[in-house]
């Protein structure tokens, strides 16, 4: 398959993720859509690594996976904190992180 197929697919997944981030209200689903965007970036990195014929792009993708895991841990921690304080689980009503 040509590299451009993979890159266009990755662009499409990225845009689906971006639409989800902009239009969903539950912070859980917003985090899931962020994962989609990061994975689209990963796909593009791996496709370009294949195009260039060396593995350095795959290292980049691996580091992106590490960053995504950290982001999930912190994001879910914040959501659990919101739930325990009986705050509404809604990104529109969540306007500050203080306290």
């Amino acid at each position, binding site marked *: 398959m*040509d590299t451009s197929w993979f890159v266009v697919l990755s662009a499409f997944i990225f845009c689906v993720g971006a639409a989800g981030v902009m239009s969903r209200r539950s912070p859980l689903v917003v985090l899931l859509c962020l994962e*989609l965007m990061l994975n689209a970036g990963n796909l593009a990195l791996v496709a370009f690594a294949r195009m260039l014929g060396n593995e350095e792009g795959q290292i980049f993708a691996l580091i992106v996976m*590490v960053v995504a895991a950290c982001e999930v841990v912190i994001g879910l921690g914040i959501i659990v904190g919101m739930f325990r304080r009986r705050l509404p689980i809604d990104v529109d009503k969540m306007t500050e992180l203080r306290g």
Partner: protein
Amino acid sequence: MLFEQILFFIAGFGAIAGALGVAILRNPFFSVLALVAHLIALAVLFLLLRADFLAAAQVVVYAGAVMVLYVFVVAYVGGSDSPLRPVEGGLGNAFGPLVALAVFVELSIAVVGSSLSGLGGRGPDVEAGFGSPGAIGDLLLTKFLLPFEAASFLLLLAAVGAVVLSRTRRGLEPLDTPQGTPD
């Protein structure tokens, strides 16, 4: 070659369906399941791109471990039906998908109209060990040692941050009062 194309289209449609499922399904639990399907389809695409180790890591770490975390939190917070943005204004409703569509059209034009000659081919032929755990580990411990260490430090910070975020602080309000004063 034909087999490769068939596999690409199957995995590509799986990935697209999973992504749309994440963004559209109303129950967060089903969104998580759709993301698992999407991640597995992406692992197949990684295999097509000769990234063997990355595909394995994707399935084990991402679809395995990270998604279990999501399922736990969805079960804890409760799979409340969170609708898409409610109908307040027609324009505000369609804003996000419209912007995303515009970005997609723009990116596609950029890719198709790009003068990068490599985009039209499938890349050079690579030797058998391309993307194997050995090759990746070799690079991580020689050329990319500093990013590797930085990533491990970042993971440590995330673990500490999760503990700090989720502990019950002594001296703070009991958890069943609606909203206490911050200390």
